[in-house]
């Protein structure tokens, strides 16, 4: 293998030298060939296709699409409040005759599904493309849904690239198809496409937006009264039939002939894995996975001895192809759960006798029991203090020396939400009981209260999540006279997904100042009278606020405000522990701050990690006042 690599390298090096001799040519060539992630390629493709309005709410793995687009000043790009709003804004733009784009993660389309279905019903007046990034393997999500079903549900065309090059090229087709067939177009990618970099030949320039924005009265198309919607439905069916005919000759639906013993139908990144696992087979590689090209499939199947489908997650292609009367297998040996890779496909191939067994090349020993390394709240995270407070008031943490493995039955129920703060679930904080979907914390807590739970209920939610979908929950809690405590963690950013702005920050997607929506005004305006704003790094304030809110019979809202430590540019003098005063009680370790470490009979602070004065929460909670500025501790020692 190493040999092959070197030999191959020599061959290519000579080519390289030849080109570099021509100097200028190489330079120009280099400019056209870029290494792009799938997300960057999608964004560039959309830009070159003349997109004018781009909207999104952040969500891994889709976030970088809007981030890339926001860098162009000839596009209007926004972080919308949530995905539903993003979809509605893009629809408005498409109605007004300019090309628009929405990007979101798989669960984002759930939030936006209502306007998505509506857009399918009304159709558009200029290209409207929705990029939806699924997350097989659940790298960073709350579930593993397969959004290809949405294409079928909404009866809209769906395109799937298998690398960055295709991602770039497909965007132009997506907008054209949208306009030609009067439909929104779904471009479906997965984490592995979005977050892999590969070589892209960029061969286009930005298409000048074709038309000026212009809206023409057409109530039968745009006003979905039942009487009009009834007229739209047959048109949608007609559209679908036309799209299926188009799919037959669509350039990205390609048969790649190898041996005729085995034919593989596949799409997206699964194609790349399958190609490597079955280098000799014939492939029908689908760039458009809804609607499917029936004749192409029938003719492909007729030319091979056996047809299998290799696809990630649900048997979407398989069932749709089976419905055409074609005999195919796939999910019988390719798992429907988790992300695929070449190893898994090879194993599947062996199970069904398509590949011969090979001896394993590696020893994967799960019995090794190596300590895991889950992600943690950062040193100096503004969420740490409040979780420590809840954990200690709710008797959840396990002191270092105690032998009890599980924490005591808690006196609080803490319904959680999604963001960095969900990490408060892990030990030592153990301070979250539920986390279902964005915005659910408030409704969940209210539901528990109304169900008659005797324990105190706390809903904990991030600032971006509150804007996204917490507001309606709060309105509901006010209206139904809920008595829960709601804690909004205001770290001034959407941290989890890489620090995007949101309405509360007052900064636009381009980093410019805009109008901020003030949290406390918003909460009071909804009708909450018990609103406290506390400093997220002041342990006493936090404790008092939580205690008084829990005791209060009213609905209480605490806004815990403190900047995300990743966003605080300057570090001040780190804290240190005076080993003379420290009696190893282990209370500071209960914070779960990664800077506080233990080495046998010594607890110490890793000074390269500690953020210092911006935080100091360990200093505030140490019962023996053993923690202080590093210089003070050292001065005391040298006395």
């Amino acid at each position: 293998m190493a040999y092959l690599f070197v030999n191959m390298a020599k061959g290519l090096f000579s080519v390289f030298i030849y080109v570099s001799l021509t100097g200028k040519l190489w330079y120009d060539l280099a400019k056209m060939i870029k290494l792009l992630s799938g997300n960057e390629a999608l964004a560039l493709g959309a830009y070159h296709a003349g997109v004018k309005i781009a909207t999104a709410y952040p969500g891994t793995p889709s976030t970088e699409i809007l981030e890339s687009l926001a860098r162009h000043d000839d596009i209007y790009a926004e972080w919308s409040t949530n995905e539903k709003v993003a979809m509605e804004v893009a629809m408005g733009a498409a109605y007004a005759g300019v090309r628009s784009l929405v990007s979101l993660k798989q669960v984002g389309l759930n939030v936006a599904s209502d306007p998505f279905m509506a857009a399918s019903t009304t159709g558009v007046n200029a290209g409207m493309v929705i990029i939806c990034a699924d997350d097989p393997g659940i790298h960073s999500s709350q579930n593993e849904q397969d959004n290809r079903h949405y294409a079928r549900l909404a009866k809209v065309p769906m395109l799937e690239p298998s690398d960055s090059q295709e991602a770039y090229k497909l965007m132009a087709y997506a907008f054209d198809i949208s306009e030609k067939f009067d439909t929104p177009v779904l471009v479906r990618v997965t984490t592995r496409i979005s977050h892999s970099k590969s070589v892209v030949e960029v061969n286009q320039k930005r298409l000048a937006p074709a038309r000026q924005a212009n809206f023409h009265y057409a109530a039968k198309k745009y006003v979905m009264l039942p009487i009009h919607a009834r007229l739209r439905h047959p048109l949608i069916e007609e559209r679908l039939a036309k799209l299926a005919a188009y799919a037959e000759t669509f350039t990205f639906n390609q048969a790649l002939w190898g041996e005729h013993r085995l034919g593989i139908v596949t799409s997206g990144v699964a194609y790349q894995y399958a190609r490597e696992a079955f280098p000799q087979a014939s492939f029908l590689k689908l760039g458009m996975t809804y609607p499917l090209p029936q004749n192409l499939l029938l003719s492909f199947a007729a030319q091979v001895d056996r047809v299998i489908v290799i696809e990630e997650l649900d048997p979407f292609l398989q069932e749709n192809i089976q419905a055409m009367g074609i005999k195919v297998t796939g999910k019988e040996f390719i798992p429907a759960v988790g992300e695929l890779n070449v190893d898994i496909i090879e194993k599947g191939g062996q199970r069904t006798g398509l590949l011969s067994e090979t001896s394993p090349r590696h020893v994967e020993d799960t019995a090794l029991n190596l300590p895991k390394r889950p992600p943690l709240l950062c040193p100096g995270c503004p969420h740490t203090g409040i979780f420590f407070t809840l954990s200690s008031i709710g008797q959840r943490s396990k002191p270092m020396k105690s032998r009890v493995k599980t924490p005591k039955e808690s006196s609080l129920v803490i319904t959680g939400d999604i963001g960095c703060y969900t990490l408060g679930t892990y030990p030592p904080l153990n301070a979250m009981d539920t986390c279902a979907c964005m915005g659910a914390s408030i409704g969940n807590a209210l539901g528990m209260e109304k169900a008659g739970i005797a324990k105190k209920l706390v809903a904990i939610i991030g600032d971006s999540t509150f804007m996204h979908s917490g507001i309606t929950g709060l309105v509901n809690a006010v209206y139904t006279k809920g008595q829960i405590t709601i804690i909004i963690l205001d770290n001034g950013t959407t941290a989890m997904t890489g620090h995007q702005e949101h309405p509360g920050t007052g900064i636009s997607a381009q980093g410019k100042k805009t109008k901020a929506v003030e949290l406390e005004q918003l909460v009071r305006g909804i009708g909450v009278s018990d609103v406290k704003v506390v400093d997220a790094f002041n342990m006493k304030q936090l404790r008092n606020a939580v205690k008084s809110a829990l005791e209060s019979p009213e609905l209480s809202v605490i806004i815990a405000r403190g900047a995300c430590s990743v966003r605080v540019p300057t570090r001040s003098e780190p804290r240190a522990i005076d080993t003379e005063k420290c009696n190893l009680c282990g209370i500071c370790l209960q914070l779960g701050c990664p800077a506080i470490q233990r080495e046998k009979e010594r607890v110490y602070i890793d000074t390269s990690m500690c953020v210092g004065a911006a935080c100091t929460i360990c200093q505030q909670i140490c019962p023996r006042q053993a923690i202080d500025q590093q210089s003070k501790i050292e001065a005391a020692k040298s006395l």
Partner: protein
Amino acid sequence: MFVTGVGGQGIVLATDIIAEAALIAGYDVKKTDTLGMAQRGGSVVSHVRIGQRVCSPLIKKGDVDILVAFEKLEAARWCYYLRHGGIAIINNLALPPLSVNMGNERYPSDKEITDILKRQTDRIYFIDATRRARELGNIRTLNMFMLGTASVFVPLEVHAWEDGISQRLSPNIREINITAFRNGRKEMRSVHL
């Protein structure tokens, strides 16, 4: 090539630069990162594949030519990706996870780590990269130092690597990072060959 370590060590940038260098040298290349819940101190894994034509961005288990680990525990965790006789370059650094700090789990000893690695390969290089980066005056050059050590085993010319670094880094930190890269290369040459 397979690069692993802990979030915040600059692994994603390092593999971006490997990929750029391969592209500059005229290869097909794919790279992909597995970050879990992103940036917060978790285990990070990045795959880079270089060749005439690359299909899957993920490398098969037991097929990695070069494993570069920025931390010892991560080297042990991921070494089964290495092919038999492949190269393992490991930063001599232990970052105990929180569970170890809390006293719930135990960090493996150097001997245990070496034994795990030995099941895959004998070509193991422990390098004091964190110390050397600190000596250079900027701990954040760790990734370029590690890149330098790995570059010895990759048939790409030095200028491709350095062009890759220059492309990706802003002018004010370019020089120190190129120095770190060269130091790493020198260090590996002194132990290997």
